[in-house]
Protein backbone atom coordinates (compact mmCIF):
# COMPACT_ATOMS: atom_id res chain seq x y z
CA UNK A 1 0.00 0.00 0.00
CA UNK A 2 1.32 3.41 -0.91
CA UNK A 3 2.33 5.42 2.13
CA UNK A 4 1.19 9.00 2.65
CA UNK A 5 4.77 10.26 2.87
CA UNK A 6 4.02 13.50 1.08
CA UNK A 7 0.82 14.03 3.07
CA UNK A 8 2.64 15.06 6.21
CA UNK A 9 3.76 18.60 6.92
CA UNK A 10 6.10 19.48 9.74
CA UNK A 11 4.53 21.65 12.46
CA UNK A 12 7.41 21.80 14.93
CA UNK A 13 11.14 21.23 14.73
CA UNK A 14 12.71 18.19 16.36
CA UNK A 15 12.80 18.64 20.09
CA UNK A 16 15.73 16.88 21.72
CA UNK A 17 15.27 15.10 25.04
CA UNK A 18 16.92 12.36 27.06
CA UNK A 19 14.82 9.70 25.35
CA UNK A 20 15.45 10.97 21.81
CA UNK A 21 13.74 13.49 19.58
CA UNK A 22 10.11 14.42 19.07
CA UNK A 23 8.29 16.51 16.47
CA UNK A 24 4.67 17.27 15.61
CA UNK A 25 3.45 16.69 12.06
CA UNK A 26 0.22 17.56 10.31
CA UNK A 27 -1.46 14.66 8.52
CA UNK A 28 -4.48 14.73 6.17
CA UNK A 29 -6.96 14.21 9.02
CA UNK A 30 -4.86 13.97 12.15
CA UNK A 31 -1.97 15.32 14.19
CA UNK A 32 1.01 12.98 14.36
CA UNK A 33 3.63 13.07 17.08
CA UNK A 34 6.80 11.30 15.94
CA UNK A 35 9.23 10.26 18.68
CA UNK A 36 12.57 8.92 17.52
CA UNK A 37 15.05 7.13 19.73
CA UNK A 38 18.01 5.25 18.31
CA UNK A 39 16.50 4.58 14.90
CA UNK A 40 13.05 3.53 16.17
CA UNK A 41 10.18 5.88 15.41
CA UNK A 42 7.03 5.80 17.52
CA UNK A 43 3.82 7.41 16.32
CA UNK A 44 0.94 8.90 18.28
CA UNK A 45 -2.09 10.21 16.43
CA UNK A 46 -4.94 12.55 17.33
CA UNK A 47 -7.69 12.62 14.74
CA UNK A 48 -9.24 16.02 14.08
CA UNK A 49 -12.76 14.75 14.71
CA UNK A 50 -11.76 13.65 18.23
CA UNK A 51 -9.93 16.76 19.41
CA UNK A 52 -12.11 18.65 21.88
CA UNK A 53 -9.65 21.30 22.97
CA UNK A 54 -6.03 22.33 23.04
CA UNK A 55 -4.74 23.97 26.18
CA UNK A 56 -1.31 25.51 26.70
CA UNK A 57 -0.10 26.13 30.24
CA UNK A 58 2.51 28.84 30.50
CA UNK A 59 5.75 27.72 32.20
CA UNK A 60 8.78 29.52 33.63
CA UNK A 61 11.06 27.98 31.00
CA UNK A 62 12.11 31.33 29.49
CA UNK A 63 12.88 32.86 32.89
CA UNK A 64 14.86 29.83 34.07
CA UNK A 65 16.91 29.61 30.87
CA UNK A 66 17.59 33.35 31.00
CA UNK A 67 18.69 33.08 34.64
CA UNK A 68 21.05 30.18 33.88
CA UNK A 69 22.45 31.80 30.72
CA UNK A 70 22.67 35.22 32.37
CA UNK A 71 24.52 33.82 35.40
CA UNK A 72 27.04 32.01 33.22
CA UNK A 73 27.44 35.11 31.05
CA UNK A 74 27.94 37.36 34.07
CA UNK A 75 30.59 35.01 35.52
CA UNK A 76 32.41 34.84 32.21
CA UNK A 77 32.21 38.62 31.80
CA UNK A 78 33.64 39.11 35.30
CA UNK A 79 36.46 36.72 34.44
CA UNK A 80 37.11 38.62 31.24
CA UNK A 81 37.19 41.96 33.07
CA UNK A 82 39.59 40.55 35.66
CA UNK A 83 41.84 39.25 32.88
CA UNK A 84 41.86 42.61 31.11
CA UNK A 85 42.56 44.42 34.39
CA UNK A 86 45.53 42.20 35.23
CA UNK A 87 46.93 42.44 31.70
CA UNK A 88 46.50 46.18 31.16
CA UNK A 89 50.20 47.03 31.78
CA UNK A 90 51.28 45.36 28.54
CA UNK A 91 48.26 43.79 26.84
CA UNK A 92 49.94 42.59 23.66
CA UNK A 93 52.51 40.32 25.34
CA UNK A 94 50.33 38.97 28.12
CA UNK A 95 48.61 35.59 27.59
CA UNK A 96 46.06 36.66 30.22
CA UNK A 97 44.83 39.28 27.76
CA UNK A 98 43.97 36.55 25.23
CA UNK A 99 42.27 34.49 27.95
CA UNK A 100 40.15 37.59 28.59
CA UNK A 101 39.22 37.77 24.90
CA UNK A 102 38.12 34.11 24.94
CA UNK A 103 36.08 34.63 28.13
CA UNK A 104 34.47 37.76 26.68
CA UNK A 105 33.56 35.83 23.53
CA UNK A 106 31.83 33.12 25.57
CA UNK A 107 30.04 35.81 27.59
CA UNK A 108 28.85 37.30 24.30
CA UNK A 109 27.55 33.88 23.21
CA UNK A 110 25.64 33.56 26.51
CA UNK A 111 24.17 37.03 26.00
CA UNK A 112 23.15 36.11 22.45
CA UNK A 113 21.46 32.93 23.67
CA UNK A 114 19.56 34.89 26.33
CA UNK A 115 18.37 37.39 23.71
CA UNK A 116 17.31 34.56 21.38
CA UNK A 117 15.52 32.83 24.27
CA UNK A 118 13.64 36.05 25.03
CA UNK A 119 12.65 36.49 21.39
CA UNK A 120 11.35 32.89 21.16
CA UNK A 121 8.73 33.80 23.76
CA UNK A 122 7.42 32.19 26.95
CA UNK A 123 7.53 28.44 27.35
CA UNK A 124 4.47 26.25 27.64
CA UNK A 125 3.23 22.70 28.05
CA UNK A 126 0.44 21.75 25.66
CA UNK A 127 -2.31 19.24 26.42
CA UNK A 128 -4.83 17.86 23.96
CA UNK A 129 -8.24 16.69 25.18
CA UNK A 130 -10.06 13.89 23.37
CA UNK A 131 -12.83 11.52 24.54
CA UNK A 132 -9.96 9.31 25.79
CA UNK A 133 -8.83 12.06 28.17
CA UNK A 134 -6.17 14.76 28.28
CA UNK A 135 -2.70 13.91 27.05
CA UNK A 136 0.42 16.08 27.00
CA UNK A 137 1.97 16.95 23.66
CA UNK A 138 5.76 16.72 23.69
CA UNK A 139 5.90 19.59 21.20
CA UNK A 140 5.49 22.59 20.91
CA UNK A 141 7.28 24.04 23.92
CA UNK A 142 6.84 27.76 23.17
CA UNK A 143 3.60 29.73 23.39
CA UNK A 144 4.29 31.56 20.12
CA UNK A 145 4.64 28.25 18.30
CA UNK A 146 1.48 26.91 19.97
CA UNK A 147 -0.50 29.98 18.85
CA UNK A 148 0.85 29.62 15.30
CA UNK A 149 -0.02 25.91 15.19
CA UNK A 150 -3.48 26.49 16.73
CA UNK A 151 -4.20 29.14 14.11
CA UNK A 152 -3.16 26.72 11.39
CA UNK A 153 -4.92 23.54 12.53
CA UNK A 154 -7.95 25.19 14.18
CA UNK A 155 -9.89 25.67 10.93
CA UNK A 156 -8.98 22.12 9.81
CA UNK A 157 -10.28 20.62 13.06
CA UNK A 158 -13.48 22.68 12.93
CA UNK A 159 -14.07 21.71 9.32
CA UNK A 160 -13.53 18.00 10.11
CA UNK A 161 -15.92 18.16 13.05
CA UNK A 162 -18.59 20.03 11.08
CA UNK A 163 -18.30 17.35 8.39
CA UNK A 164 -18.54 14.53 10.95
CA UNK A 165 -21.44 16.19 12.76
Amino acid at each position, binding site marked *: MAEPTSNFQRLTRNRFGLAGTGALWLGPD*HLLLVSNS*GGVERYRRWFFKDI*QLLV*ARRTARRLILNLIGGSFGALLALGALASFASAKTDPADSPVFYVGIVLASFAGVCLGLCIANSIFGPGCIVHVLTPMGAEPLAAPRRLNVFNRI*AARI*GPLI*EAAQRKAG
Partner: protein
Amino acid sequence: MTATLSCPRCHLALDPAAASGGAEVACAACRAVLTVRLFPAFETPPEAVSAASGERALEGEAVCFFHADKRAAATCERCGRFLCALCDVPFAGKHLCPSCLDASKLPDLINRRVVWGQVAALFGMLPLALCFLWPFYFITGPCAIFLALWKWKEPGSLVHGPRHGLAILGVIGGVLQVATMIGLVWGLIFSIRNG
Protein backbone atom coordinates in the same frame (compact mmCIF):
# COMPACT_ATOMS: atom_id res chain seq x y z
CA MET B 1 -23.32 16.21 27.51
CA THR B 2 -20.27 18.45 27.23
CA ALA B 3 -16.71 17.59 28.16
CA THR B 4 -15.18 19.33 31.15
CA LEU B 5 -12.40 21.88 31.01
CA SER B 6 -9.95 21.48 33.86
CA CYS B 7 -6.59 22.96 34.69
CA PRO B 8 -3.86 20.57 33.45
CA ARG B 9 -1.79 21.34 36.52
CA CYS B 10 -4.21 21.11 39.48
CA HIS B 11 -7.26 19.60 37.67
CA LEU B 12 -9.61 22.30 39.00
CA ALA B 13 -12.70 22.65 36.80
CA LEU B 14 -12.70 25.90 34.80
CA ASP B 15 -15.46 27.84 33.10
CA PRO B 16 -15.32 27.10 29.35
CA ALA B 17 -17.11 30.38 28.58
CA ALA B 18 -14.20 32.38 29.99
CA ALA B 19 -11.73 30.44 27.89
CA SER B 20 -13.50 30.72 24.55
CA GLY B 21 -11.95 32.73 21.75
CA GLY B 22 -8.37 31.78 22.58
CA ALA B 23 -8.21 34.19 25.54
CA GLU B 24 -5.80 33.58 28.39
CA VAL B 25 -7.34 32.44 31.67
CA ALA B 26 -5.73 32.05 35.06
CA CYS B 27 -6.54 29.04 37.21
CA ALA B 28 -8.08 30.24 40.48
CA ALA B 29 -6.29 27.55 42.51
CA CYS B 30 -2.75 27.26 41.15
CA ARG B 31 -2.55 30.57 39.20
CA ALA B 32 -1.40 28.76 36.08
CA VAL B 33 -1.92 30.89 32.97
CA LEU B 34 -3.75 28.88 30.32
CA THR B 35 -4.38 29.53 26.64
CA VAL B 36 -7.36 27.44 25.54
CA ARG B 37 -8.63 26.65 22.07
CA LEU B 38 -12.08 25.02 22.12
CA PHE B 39 -13.52 23.02 19.23
CA PRO B 40 -17.11 21.98 18.42
CA ALA B 41 -16.47 18.42 19.71
CA PHE B 42 -16.07 19.94 23.17
CA GLU B 43 -19.74 20.97 23.20
CA THR B 44 -21.02 17.83 21.50
CA PRO B 45 -18.78 14.86 22.20
CA PRO B 46 -19.50 11.67 20.22
CA GLU B 47 -22.23 9.44 21.60
CA ALA B 48 -21.06 6.38 23.48
CA VAL B 49 -21.44 3.12 21.56
CA SER B 50 -22.33 -0.02 23.49
CA ALA B 51 -23.57 -3.53 22.76
CA ALA B 52 -27.10 -2.14 23.02
CA SER B 53 -26.42 0.39 20.25
CA GLY B 54 -28.14 0.04 16.93
CA GLU B 55 -31.76 -0.48 16.06
CA ARG B 56 -33.34 -3.91 15.94
CA ALA B 57 -33.91 -5.11 12.38
CA LEU B 58 -37.46 -5.54 11.10
CA GLU B 59 -38.58 -8.34 8.84
CA GLY B 60 -36.92 -8.07 5.39
CA GLU B 61 -34.33 -5.49 6.40
CA ALA B 62 -30.58 -5.91 5.89
CA VAL B 63 -28.90 -7.03 9.10
CA CYS B 64 -25.41 -6.73 10.50
CA PHE B 65 -22.98 -9.52 9.54
CA PHE B 66 -21.87 -9.89 13.15
CA HIS B 67 -25.24 -9.28 14.89
CA ALA B 68 -28.15 -10.97 13.13
CA ASP B 69 -30.77 -9.03 15.12
CA LYS B 70 -29.41 -5.53 14.40
CA ARG B 71 -30.28 -3.36 11.42
CA ALA B 72 -27.37 -2.65 9.05
CA ALA B 73 -26.25 0.98 9.30
CA ALA B 74 -23.18 0.96 7.08
CA THR B 75 -21.12 -1.20 4.73
CA CYS B 76 -17.47 -2.10 5.27
CA GLU B 77 -15.47 -0.38 2.53
CA ARG B 78 -12.95 -3.24 2.37
CA CYS B 79 -15.01 -6.45 2.48
CA GLY B 80 -18.53 -5.14 1.78
CA ARG B 81 -20.15 -6.67 4.88
CA PHE B 82 -23.22 -4.97 6.34
CA LEU B 83 -22.47 -3.44 9.75
CA CYS B 84 -24.60 -2.21 12.64
CA ALA B 85 -23.74 0.94 14.62
CA LEU B 86 -21.61 -1.08 17.03
CA CYS B 87 -19.53 -2.84 14.37
CA ASP B 88 -19.08 0.20 12.12
CA VAL B 89 -15.62 1.61 12.87
CA PRO B 90 -15.16 4.99 11.21
CA PHE B 91 -11.43 5.27 10.61
CA ALA B 92 -9.39 7.66 8.49
CA GLY B 93 -12.49 8.75 6.56
CA LYS B 94 -13.59 5.15 5.89
CA HIS B 95 -16.12 2.76 7.37
CA LEU B 96 -14.47 -0.54 8.30
CA CYS B 97 -15.52 -3.67 10.14
CA PRO B 98 -13.44 -4.78 13.15
CA SER B 99 -11.95 -7.78 11.33
CA CYS B 100 -10.78 -5.69 8.35
CA LEU B 101 -9.37 -3.09 10.71
CA ASP B 102 -7.52 -5.82 12.57
CA ALA B 103 -6.14 -7.44 9.42
CA SER B 104 -5.28 -4.29 7.50
CA LYS B 105 -1.80 -2.85 7.24
CA LEU B 106 -2.99 0.74 6.93
CA PRO B 107 -0.20 3.29 7.43
CA ASP B 108 -2.62 5.05 9.78
CA LEU B 109 -2.39 2.09 12.15
CA ILE B 110 1.39 1.81 12.36
CA ASN B 111 2.53 3.02 15.74
CA ARG B 112 6.18 1.95 15.63
CA ARG B 113 8.74 1.51 12.89
CA VAL B 114 12.48 0.87 12.77
CA VAL B 115 14.26 3.29 10.42
CA TRP B 116 17.02 0.96 9.24
CA GLY B 117 18.89 3.65 7.34
CA GLN B 118 19.26 5.59 10.57
CA VAL B 119 20.39 2.48 12.45
CA ALA B 120 23.01 1.81 9.77
CA ALA B 121 24.19 5.44 10.00
CA LEU B 122 24.47 5.11 13.78
CA PHE B 123 26.52 1.92 13.46
CA GLY B 124 28.65 3.51 10.75
CA MET B 125 29.29 6.98 12.13
CA LEU B 126 28.98 6.82 15.92
CA PRO B 127 32.06 4.58 16.48
CA LEU B 128 34.04 6.87 14.16
CA ALA B 129 32.99 9.93 16.17
CA LEU B 130 33.76 8.17 19.47
CA CYS B 131 37.29 7.06 18.63
CA PHE B 132 37.71 5.02 21.83
CA LEU B 133 35.30 2.49 20.32
CA TRP B 134 37.95 1.44 17.76
CA PRO B 135 38.28 -2.13 19.11
CA PHE B 136 34.66 -2.67 18.03
CA TYR B 137 35.25 -1.54 14.43
CA PHE B 138 35.43 -5.19 13.33
CA ILE B 139 31.82 -5.64 14.50
CA THR B 140 30.20 -2.25 13.93
CA GLY B 141 31.68 -1.65 10.47
CA PRO B 142 30.37 -4.84 8.81
CA CYS B 143 27.09 -4.43 10.75
CA ALA B 144 26.59 -0.95 9.27
CA ILE B 145 27.26 -2.16 5.71
CA PHE B 146 25.10 -5.26 6.17
CA LEU B 147 22.13 -3.37 7.65
CA ALA B 148 22.27 -0.62 5.02
CA LEU B 149 22.26 -3.08 2.12
CA TRP B 150 19.98 -5.76 3.61
CA LYS B 151 17.27 -3.29 4.60
CA TRP B 152 17.67 -1.02 1.57
CA LYS B 153 14.13 -1.70 0.30
CA GLU B 154 12.43 -1.65 3.70
CA PRO B 155 9.92 1.19 4.16
CA GLY B 156 11.54 4.08 5.94
CA SER B 157 10.15 6.74 8.21
CA LEU B 158 6.41 7.40 7.91
CA VAL B 159 7.01 11.12 7.56
CA HIS B 160 10.43 11.29 5.88
CA GLY B 161 10.09 8.28 3.58
CA PRO B 162 12.97 5.90 2.88
CA ARG B 163 16.18 7.62 3.98
CA HIS B 164 18.73 6.25 1.51
CA GLY B 165 21.07 9.13 2.34
CA LEU B 166 21.47 7.79 5.87
CA ALA B 167 21.99 4.25 4.57
CA ILE B 168 24.74 5.51 2.25
CA LEU B 169 26.29 7.33 5.22
CA GLY B 170 26.20 4.03 7.12
CA VAL B 171 27.96 2.23 4.25
CA ILE B 172 30.65 4.94 4.09
CA GLY B 173 31.18 4.76 7.86
CA GLY B 174 31.28 0.98 7.78
CA VAL B 175 33.84 0.93 4.95
CA LEU B 176 36.00 3.47 6.81
CA GLN B 177 35.88 1.34 9.98
CA VAL B 178 36.79 -1.85 8.12
CA ALA B 179 39.58 -0.03 6.27
CA THR B 180 40.90 1.34 9.57
CA MET B 181 41.00 -2.12 11.13
CA ILE B 182 42.65 -3.66 8.05
CA GLY B 183 45.24 -0.86 8.17
CA LEU B 184 45.89 -1.46 11.87
CA VAL B 185 46.26 -5.23 11.43
CA TRP B 186 48.48 -4.77 8.39
CA GLY B 187 50.63 -2.27 10.31
CA LEU B 188 50.90 -4.67 13.26
CA ILE B 189 51.97 -7.58 11.02
CA PHE B 190 54.43 -5.33 9.17
CA SER B 191 56.01 -4.12 12.42
CA ILE B 192 56.28 -7.69 13.83
CA ARG B 193 57.95 -8.98 10.63
CA ASN B 194 60.48 -6.13 10.64
CA GLY B 195 61.26 -6.60 14.32
